[in-house]
């Protein structure tokens, strides 16, 4: 198989494997919100005060999943 086709195949397979990283980030995001909900049900008065930290933690965790998506997009669209 020549280099062009082999590289295209490698890029496609790598992009597929990068989606595992996004699945793992999904587990992390669910964990953050699940912990917040279970604590908020126990102590509803204190829940609103921590909302800012919840959103911050969500954004930082989702960033890692987006890094993985970036690798996949680079592999598919950027010839490298």
């Amino acid at each position: 198989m020549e280099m062009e086709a082999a590289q295209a195949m490698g890029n496609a397979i790598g992009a597929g494997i990068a989606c595992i990283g996004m699945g793992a980030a999904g587990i992390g995001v669910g964990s953050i919100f699940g912990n917040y909900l279970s604590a908020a049900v126990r102590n509803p008065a204190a829940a609103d005060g921590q909302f800012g930290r919840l959103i911050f933690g969500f954004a930082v965790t989702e960033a890692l999943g987006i890094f993985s998506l970036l690798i996949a997009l680079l592999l598919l669209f950027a010839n490298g």
Partner: protein
Amino acid sequence: MADATDPIHQFEISEIVPIEIGGVNLSFTNSALFMVATVVVGSGFLIWATMRRRLVPTRMQSSAEMLYEFVANTLRDAAGSEGMKFFSLVFTLFLFILLANLFGMFPYFFTVTSHLIVTAALSFLVIGIVVFYGFWRNGFGFLKLFVPSGVPVFILPFVVFIEVLSFISRPISLSIRLFANILAGHITLKVFAGFVITLGGLGAAGIAGAILPLIMTVALTALEVLVAVLQAYVFAILTSLYLNDAIHPGH
């Protein structure tokens, strides 16, 4: 995927006024145009809203005051009262990134923050200020940031190495977080919009089926507006936390 529904073409930079000085391309591009628009709208809003400083504020003035208080509280919580001297920087970053992201949500407008060079410039500016101010204020005591307290001596070199690595990853993650969120959102929007077009070209049954990607596109647009605001807030709060590290190094 190089047809009319290509999702990458929307990020292409086009020159509006070609300018070349001494072999360097300094053209006024569409990216520069939208950066100018962001600055004009942001400063115009703030100037107009606070032109008559009424004691009982109007809606405009009240919204500007709420924006000011939101960023001021975020910075004060993260960096303390000494961190408030950086309020202009954090507020400008927040407003610029917020408006740049929101402008990208309109059709045919160019998204400034969808290019890594723009977000990397903002992020390296922040980290540069953190390092420079940290050394200026604390001298070599700034390096206490990398030595957490209460660590047994024999694994200290290993922990210091890891702390330095995690500090070096800060500008990278700060820039890539904003860039990749906005880029991924816009590509996804374009791909689903492309599905609407492709299905719509298949006749009557296709047009009926094209409702589904259309609904998905509307939902994704709402999600993207949320992401735009959220990423601006996360950039501002991370800036505040890193400035706190410069002002009060050491855990």
